[in-house]
């Protein structure tokens, strides 16, 4: 479904991603883990069209998407929930959700999806007319996941959904992601710092290290936290 070949992202002289090859099959869930600055967000933004690809190619469902505008990529079926959530703080929960369907024009179906999602996320139904900026971090994370689902994506990319959340809230958000996965069989790319979060959810988890994919890892093994930061040998 999604294939990256030799993808490079540069910020001036700095190469944030170097020769990244990655393939996600239809219905698959791939996790990417890595330390701060490893290039995780650059990877998600490059796929979504929000960072230019300096070299290599990205194809989605057989079509080249690198070089396309973010809105064109979104309209082809890729939804990104970026790091830091990015709710529209001065707009209501309902308006945020409705904006998730910006790439669609089937108003009847959009209204039905809205009803279903509000049933699925009761806290959002409760805060429907409140400002998104007033929600707690966990509620905002639920909102941006629901907002992404309003687009009826075929590939959902989640960039550090646990960032800045309390541990109990992280559990809740990951339970939700797992449920969505079970219900919809949605293809997902999930970026995380903590590989244990992806255990049982991702088909495979890859380590991104200083802009390069450093192979698949076993999330059941311990000692990853230190390995990310290059403090010790990575577990074999």
């Amino acid at each position, binding site marked *: 479904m999604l294939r990256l070949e030799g993808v490079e992202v540069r910020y001036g002289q700095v190469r944030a991603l170097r020769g990244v090859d990655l393939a996600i099959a239809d219905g698959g869930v791939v996790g990417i883990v890595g330390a701060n600055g490893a290039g995780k967000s650059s990877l998600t933004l490059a796929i*979504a069209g929000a960072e230019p690809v300096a070299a290599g190619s990205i194809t989605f469902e057989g079509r080249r998407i690198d070089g396309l505008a973010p*809105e064109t990529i979104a309209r082809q079926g890729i939804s990104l929930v*970026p790091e830091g959530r*990015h709710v529209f703080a*001065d707009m209501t929960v309902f308006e945020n959700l*409705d*904006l998730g369907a910006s790439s669609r024009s089937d108003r009847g179906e959009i209204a039905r999806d809205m009803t279903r999602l509000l049933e699925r996320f009761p806290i959002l139904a409760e805060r429907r007319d409140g400002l998104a900026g007033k929600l707690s971090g966990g509620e905002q994370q639920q909102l941006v996941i629901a907002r992404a689902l309003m687009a009826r994506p075929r590939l959902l990319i989640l960039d550090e959904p646990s960032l800045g959340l309390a541990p109990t809230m992280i559990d809740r958000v990951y339970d939700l992601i797992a449920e969505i996965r079970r219900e919809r069989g949605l293809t997902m790319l999930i970026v995380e710092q903590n590989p244990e979060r992806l255990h049982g959810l991702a088909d495979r988890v890859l380590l991104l290290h200083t802009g390069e994919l450093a192979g698949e890892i076993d999330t059941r093994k311990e000692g990853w936290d230190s390995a990310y930061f290059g403090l010790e040998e990575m577990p074999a």
Partner: protein
Amino acid sequence: MTAALQLVVDALSVGSLYALSALGIGLIFGIMRLINFAHGEFIMVGAYAAMLTAAIWAPFAVIVAVAVALVVALVTERLAFRRLRSSPPATLLITSFAVSYLLQNLMVLIEGARPQTVDFLSALTRSMDVGGVRLPWINVVTIAVTAVLLTLLAIFLRRTRFGRMTRAAASDFRMARLLGVRADRVIAIAFALSGLLAAAVAILLLAQTGTVSPVMGLQLALVGFVATVIGGMGSLSGAVLGGLTVGAVTVLLQSLLPAELRPFRDAFVYGLVIAVLLVRPGGLFRSAAAMQERV
């Protein structure tokens, strides 16, 4: 009491023109991070269009002014700003100066550099008597037109899908695009609205002063910009409130300053602006929620 009422109406009237100018600038800034100093020239071309057609029929002149300002705004976006969309704000700012001078000088070539006068809706300069207070019709009409325009704009921005997309883009353009909001369309909408607001200012200003000149928009663009800063850059309601505030302060200073200090009124206005920004660098009306970091 009557003097106070007079002052309130004057303040609201001047503040209305400033608010409309600030909103035109604020809309574009919110989405593109472009401080569009050429907005003053959208006002100027609208005023010239109204002046040149005023003799035919006033309502026709109003329609022509709106059409011309709108088209000039859209053409400017298409030819000058679209290619530079991802350029740094400084590049966009310099480009807006270039567009501003280009339009001014084009008008000098076509109509000459001298200010021209025209009899346009001059009946509005007459006053009405409200409880002993003489209120010029033009002030009341300016306030009413502004109220109607702001209400319609609020309905568009809040109740329609395109309006919501415009607000989302003004708040976080990259996130809006990641959700599928079409950049070209939403920017074109913003420029069209900006042109419409400029035309409204042009018509009201022409009715007030009966004068046009190639540099007539400069002062309004500057005040509009200051008002958006005071209101909180990127906040649309802040731009409106900022415009009203700057207008009110200007009128108050004009009325309260000793006669010998009145020529320096603008120095006091901008001194207050600096003081406000020292205390609240994010602007007077920017909410904490809206101050969150952009992508």
